[in-house]
């Protein structure tokens, strides 16, 4: 069952297409990572899914409905936008009251529990919170409305490594507890590796590859061997990326079948290698990826 289904989805801003021909099924109950360089259309896709944007072409269906089509649909989808906006003049307590008044499914116990656990002072104006605390407050609002799908746009971008680890750990706990689906974008591959079990790679406004992380890892192999022409590979081995030195060829291939050629030294790529291969392969010279350990 998919929680998000897009068919030929596109979004055009004035003259530029931010997203084109996006056909995608995001399975329910998973944490899906949305990866891509800056300007690849990640925020646009999330905005379309939340109903913040209207598609220019194609269709998108989220939790069985048209995004943003009414209060019932809005209740099903939580969205924490980039920079995790909160009202600077409203206190933490007032944000919780806002959530309680605007959401019929609001889980006040959950929200208050989280705020207490995070050590946020309820009387403090949200403008005085640190970046990490603000993100946590925004996430609390997103989780406590008890959505079926939670969309997070670069939720950890502004956080330091420690706050990031806490935030993601916290998110995972909430996912496990409430069984919600999550789609989160990030360009920090290491973070996604830790939390995601489904992956969508967007490059140049297009979906480059999408699939379960386990399956992606199982169907990709890194081949190292003496220098040779890759056109001679068997038909079921699709080259994703390749590099040559004078004597050696390294290639990342996608294949369902085992590699039988004894000339190759066969290795299993990590998720990060795999993502990088897809990003570089598409002609993006220097992917704007940060790798944080």
């Amino acid at each position, binding site marked *: 069952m998919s929680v998000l289904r897009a068919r030929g989805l596109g979004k055009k801003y004035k003259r530029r297409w931010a997203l084109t021909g996006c056909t995608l099924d995001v399975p329910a109950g998973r944490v899906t990572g949305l990866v891509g360089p800056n300007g690849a259309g990640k925020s646009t896709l999330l905005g379309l899914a939340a109903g913040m944007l209207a598609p220019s072409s194609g269709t998108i269906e989220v939790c069985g409905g048209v995004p943003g089509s009414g*209060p019932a649909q809005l209740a099903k989808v939580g969205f924490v936008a980039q920079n995790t906006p909160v009202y600077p003049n409203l206190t933490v307590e007032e944000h919780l009251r806002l959530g309680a008044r605007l959401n019929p499914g609001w889980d006040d116990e959950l929200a208050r529990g989280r705020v207490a656990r995070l050590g946020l002072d309820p009387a403090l104006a949200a403008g005085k919170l640190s970046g990490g605390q603000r993100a946590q407050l925004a996430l609390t609002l997103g989780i406590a409305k008890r959505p079926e799908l939670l969309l997070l746009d670069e939720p950890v971008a502004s956080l330091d490594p420690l706050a990031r680890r806490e935030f993601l750990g916290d998110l995972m706990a909430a996912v496990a507890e409430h069984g919600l689906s999550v789609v989160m974008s990030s360009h920090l591959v290491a973070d996604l590796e830790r939390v995601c079990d489904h992956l969508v790679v967007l490059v140049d406004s297009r979906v480059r590859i999408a699939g379960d992380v386990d399956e992606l890892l199982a169907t990709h192999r890194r081949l190292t061997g003496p220098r040779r022409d890759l056109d001679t590979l068997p038909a079921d081995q699709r080259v994703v990326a390749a590099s040559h030195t004078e004597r050696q060829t390294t290639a990342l291939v996608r294949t369902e079948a085992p590699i039988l050629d004894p000339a190759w030294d066969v290795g299993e790529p990590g998720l990060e290698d795999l993502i990088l291969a897809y990003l570089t392969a598409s002609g993006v010279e220097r992917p704007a990826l940060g790798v944080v350990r």
Partner: protein
Amino acid sequence: MTWLAWRQLRFPVMSVYAVLAPAVLVLAISRPVGGDFGDLGFAYLAGTLAVQLLPAVLGVFWGVPMITRELETGTHNLVWNQSVTRTRWLAVKLGIGAPAAMVAAGVLSLVVGWWADPIDTAADLDAERGFQARVTPLVFAARGIAPIGYAAFAFVLGVAIAILLRRTVPAMAVTLVVYVAVQLAVPYGVRPHVLPPVEESVTLTARSIEGIQADEGVSGDVPVSVRVAEPAGAWVLANETVDANGVVTHPLPAAVGDCLPPASADPPTLADLDRIRACFARLDGLGYRQHLAYQPVTRFWPLQWAELALFLVLSALLTWCCFRRLRHLS
């Protein structure tokens, strides 16, 4: 949503009401009672000006930031993703802000109007008091119920321009400019035609003529235009000389070129007066008449209601535009 919208608007609303309350109180205890209004000129002017400025202030400082503050800090992304549609979000904001603006402008206008009533009544009866009649544009916009319509319009205008421009300062500037333009266009382009003005054709005689505007000529002053006496308390739209075919004549024809005695400090002699009289009789004989068009003092309330209706309709149209545009906002 009401709670949130009020929480966000309460500071600007309370600030304006906090300034209005003492102003209203001061007016209430200082109302003039007949006689000489000479020393009240400042208070009269300040009150009139305050009623005219208040709607613009409400549009610029309530309407614009109510929207742009959300768009600039990105909190629209937060609030539109609670279980409340953006249409409802805007409806509640307008539903709180517009009535608050209308009440503020209405209260101020009615109190200022009540305070200035003795002055306005005197001005309506006699134009020589130095105060303008109620139905003339400057006073009209600061009296009665029209300011309620202005406030609604200015507020919705601020919201509409904020949705269009998305940034606080440019939206404030544009709101102010558009509001002022509308406030200039309506009294000169629309209000005179809302109700057909009273038109009169006055025979030109030395008696009916109240004033002559003249240029200096070789053998005395040459009259350029004449004015006839105007009814008290009226908003005069035209006081002009027309020829037999009804075409406006300006300057006056050469037939009256030698009417006036040379300018001098001496009072005109009887011969001079005879000359003037004969001269204007000649003008009358050539078929010239004075055309007078005006909105009489009795039109004040009909025009006020028409103005209120006009601005409420404009506000409704703008509101519709806001909701249409809102769908494309992100």
